[in-house]
């Protein structure tokens, strides 16, 4: 759906981006992760036909952004960091205007606008003046304007910027709902936002893509291992005694596991950290259950993506 080949942007002698090359298949949700100022916004603006690349070829849906920008603009819905809202208009009036200029069939526009308002949780605010809405609602209107023409590609630049924790959670849920068959590009410097909403991650640093892949792939590639946290009950129903070192030894014997160590032994729960090549969670679970242990929790280690990120952007020792 999206192909970039050696795409770059320079302002005079200053390099803002690239050259970067990557492809995004149709229907994938890809997150662009990077510190502020590494070129995420530049990249997204190029794909939204808001900024001209100074080198390379960028294609969206088979159309070149330079040769046929209008064809690309028809395919793309774009939510910039600051939503482009006419604060004097009502929510419905604004969405109707955006639908008109983005070529939505006038006969179906009323229905489409109502559908988008429901999807983005704006139903009760449809008559409100945008300038009188809270920041969270304005951000929703920003998302609504990006999808009102049902684009094949949705580009969102820092969609949770400035939102409170509840609004962030709602926005993530909204992004997950929007996926469907759509190709979604999201940029953020918030790690959990990317890991929770995207299939794939592209890490940008100093204007270049320094790594790409799923969270598992990045962990395996960068850290050399996937980290898993396992919690088991210390008083299992089976009565099997729980010896932390014995449990760790058993886990280390599983193929793919490179290390297992007890982290925290409480009165009721024993927590272990396991490093492995690839995702071995099913094997870990099976081995523990077969040994008579009660598994309470088994998931990817928290802050793993953060470790990956810091390694990639050279902040591992920070």
């Amino acid at each position: 759906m999206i192909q970039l080949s050696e795409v770059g942007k320079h302002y005079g002698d200053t390099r803002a981006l690239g050259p970067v090359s990557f492809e995004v298949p149709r229907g994938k949700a890809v997150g662009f992760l990077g510190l502020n100022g590494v070129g995420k916004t530049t990249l997204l603006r190029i794909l939204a036909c808001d900024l001209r690349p100074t080198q390379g070829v960028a294609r969206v849906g088979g159309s070149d952004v330079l040769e046929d920008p209008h064809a690309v603009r028809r395919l793309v819905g774009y939510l910039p960091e600051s939503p482009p809202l006419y604060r004097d208009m009502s929510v419905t009036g604004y969405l109707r205007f955006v639908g008109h200029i983005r070529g939505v069939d006038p006969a179906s526009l009323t229905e489409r606008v109502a559908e988008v308002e429901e999807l983005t949780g704006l139903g009760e605010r449809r008559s409100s003046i945008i300038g009188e809405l809270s920041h969270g609602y304005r951000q929703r209107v920003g998302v609504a304007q990006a999808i009102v023409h049902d684009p094949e590609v949705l580009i969102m630049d820092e969609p949770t910027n400035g939102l409170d924790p509840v609004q962030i959670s709602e926005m993530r849920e909204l992004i997950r709902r929007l996926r469907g068959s759509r190709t979604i590009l999201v940029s953020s410097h918030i790690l959990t936002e990317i890991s929770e909403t995207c299939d794939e991650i592209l890490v940008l640093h100093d204007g270049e893509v320094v790594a790409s892949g799923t969270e598992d792939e990045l962990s395996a590639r960068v850290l050399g291992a996937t980290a898993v946290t396992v919690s088991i009950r210390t008083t299992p129903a089976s009565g099997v005694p729980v010896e932390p070192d014995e449990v760790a030894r058993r886990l280390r014997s599983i193929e793919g596991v490179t290390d297992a160590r007890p982290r925290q032994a409480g009165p009721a729960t024993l927590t272990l950290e396991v490093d492995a090549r690839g995702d071995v969670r099913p094997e870990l679970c099976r081995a523990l259950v077969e040994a008579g242990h009660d598994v309470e929790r088994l998931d990817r280690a928290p802050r793993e993506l953060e470790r990956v990120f810091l390694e990639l952007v050279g902040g591992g020792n920070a």
Partner: protein
Amino acid sequence: MRAVAYIFRRELGVYSRSPIGYFVAAIVLLLDGLLFYAQALGPLAGERLSGEVLAAFFYNASGLTSVAAVVLSVRLIAEERQTGTQVLLDTSPLHDWQIVGGKFLSAFAFLTGITLATIYMPLLIFVNGKVAVTQILVGYLGLLLLGASVLAIGMFATALSRHQLVAAATGALVTATLFLLWPLSRVVDPPISLVFAGLSIHGRHFTGFQAGVLHTRDVFYYLALTYFFLLAATKVMEAKRWE
């Protein structure tokens, strides 16, 4: 043309929802009224013929229309850039001429409304005098053509800058220069005086309209000026869209 209509409708809505539209309309109508009173009934009236009073009305109205056109046009694009909404238009499949066209027509429609709201003043002349209806019609045609030209200059200025004050200053400067060409043409020698007079936005080209005389060359001049500056505005938009 549909896209032009959508932009036109939205922009016309802004004039009706924001104070700027009402403010400009109120000031223009107030000053037009005061000047007309002074020319027709007040101390300046004297023993003037009705036709002369009407010509003076159009003369005064032309200045006010020009100022109003600059004020109404400066926000059209600069404000979008200032508030960050230009990205909405830039990333939509609209052509730049559609954006410029829709915005220009909305400002022109609003300016036409203000201009036509002064119609009661020339009609008052009929109470105590007599003027040709054609003089009124031609005079208003001149005001609208002049207004369109200054609006187009304003469109060009607002396309150049993201700051409304800079856009206003640029628009006012270009318009003032074109106004000053007429008095300048009288103090310089030919052939420069002919060039200045030919390019002047007011004197030579507006005098006929205020007297009720319709010259094709004047109509063509204002239309050409409007087209030129709208084209220039479109080209500036095109250049800035892909920075």
